């Protein structure tokens, strides 16, 4: 093996992200460039040479990645590797964090995500988000789902709104469980139901991309399985980027998996490849539990 060098670039697209010339602290390995297939032909989200800073500290180093249409891309990596930070760049949720600066080109359908003229309100309507902890509003189930359509003025009549709410809840697989108690508080549901309510709330504004930040980390295995099943169904209509700590989950739900390490995007590959034969030794070390 030592005699061989893996040159994954040979089979990926000719375009390669700029080399990262920094030593990664804590390991002897130098992360120079992303190996595998970071790009794809039908990219919904296109990120090039993204750098993110928190004040002086750099959280993301020169990450380039495409997320394809109707594709689920999983982002894995140890805590603090920047995967959540990167995810939150995609709908500019980092804007609210004091001292956070994002550099690089990010585009959604070739329209820039960052820029002085870009309004975040319609952007966030197009790029929905589901968070780690289920966070329904302390309002009724109906109001939770209807909130997005209401503030964006999507539904003009009550009947239309009712329809959107029902459809969203159906697609989130929650309708049958809550149809008789739509006026009850969303916070009274179980953890898994709350998370599906949050997904229903996100899809109620018909986004094109759904970002999920560890959506199952607070849920039990059965609720987790439901969400994973849901993600698979949602893939037909949406592009999904999911950050997860569970490698099995990444393996189950995603088509491609991106491995982040200390702010660098080490490897992006088809999920099967990453979990059977990763090309970078850092990826290998992480997914086989050899860290530390």
């Amino acid at each position: 093996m030592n005699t061989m060098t893996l040159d994954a670039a040979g089979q990926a697209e000719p375009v390669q992200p700029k080399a990262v010339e920094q030593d990664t602290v804590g390991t002897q390995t130098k992360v120079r460039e992303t190996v595998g297939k970071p790009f794809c032909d039908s990219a919904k989200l296109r990120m090039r040479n993204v750098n993110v800073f928190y004040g002086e500290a750099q959280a993301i180093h020169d990450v380039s990645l495409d997320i394809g249409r109707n594709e689920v891309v999983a982002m894995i990596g140890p805590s603090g590797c920047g995967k959540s930070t990167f995810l939150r760049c995609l709908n500019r949720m980092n804007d609210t964090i004091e001292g956070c600066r994002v550099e690089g080109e990010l585009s959604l359908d070739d329209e820039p995500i960052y820029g002085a003229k870009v309004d975040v309100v319609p952007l966030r309507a197009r790029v929905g988000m589901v968070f780690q902890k289920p966070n329904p509003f302390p309002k009724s189930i109906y109001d939770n789902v209807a909130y997005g359509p209401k503030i964006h003025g999507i539904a003009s009549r009550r009947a239309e709104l009712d329809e959107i709410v029902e459809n969203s809840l159906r697609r989130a697989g929650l309708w049958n469980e809550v149809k008789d108690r739509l006026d009850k508080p969303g916070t009274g549901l179980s953890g898994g139901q709350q998370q599906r309510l949050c997904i229903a709330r996100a899809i109620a504004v018909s986004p094109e991309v759904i970002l999920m930040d560890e959506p199952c980390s607070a849920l039990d295995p059965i609720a987790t399985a439901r969400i994973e099943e849901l993600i698979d169904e949602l893939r037909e209509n949406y592009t999904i980027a999911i950050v997860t700590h569970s490698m099995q989950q990444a393996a189950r739900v995603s088509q491609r998996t991106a491995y982040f390490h200390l702010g660098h995007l080490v490897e992006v590959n088809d999920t099967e490849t990453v979990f059977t034969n990763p090309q970078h030794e850092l990826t290998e070390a992480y997914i086989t539990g050899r860290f530390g």
Partner: protein
Amino acid sequence: MEMHFDQHISRQFNEDLESIKTEMLEMGGMVARQVADAVDALANADSELAEKVLHIEEEIDRREMALDEHATLIIAKRQPAASDLRMVLSVTRIARDLERIGDEASKIAKMAIALTDEGTSPRGYTEIRHIANAVRKMLNDALDAYTRFDVASAMATLAEDEQVDMDYRTAVRELITYMMEDPRSISRVINVLWSLRSLERIGDHAKNICEQVVYLVEGADIRHGHEKNLKNF
């Protein structure tokens, strides 16, 4: 990429992987011994040795089952990925090949007993010796390559199988002429042919083991003539 199975955060996981590998290699050692004994029994018409070979067969079957169970437990408890997953899979696959090799060795031992009963010195022993040596070397090299995660050596050993197959075909042709010359020898020569056939099969299984070495180290499946899956070699 170097193979390290002793650097997991979980020490128990290290030990589990190490122990199935050791179990498999022990099993490999037993099977190699069994093949050698079977060939010796045949060559020396030693029915006692042949009986011993048949006896060991049960032990090998038992070990294969134990190894399978052990591997199942590792998969259930650890959900191994990447090289760990390939390690577990390759160990179980090799164990299966080893068990088959054991079966073939038993067949040879049975032939040895049959030939001993019929009388000594049949024709074709030279060929058997020649092919047996080649096959035993292959088996030892394959296990050795696995121990050292040595892809180059595995590929070299794998290539030897072609020579064995050729030698086997030559030997078969030769034995057919024997039978044509002396029809009375047909039943004995067929026994020899069966033994040769078993040795050739053992060579095939040794080749499978080499393929598993490649799979373990490179993650490339080169079985059934898919050598192109192994890039840059």
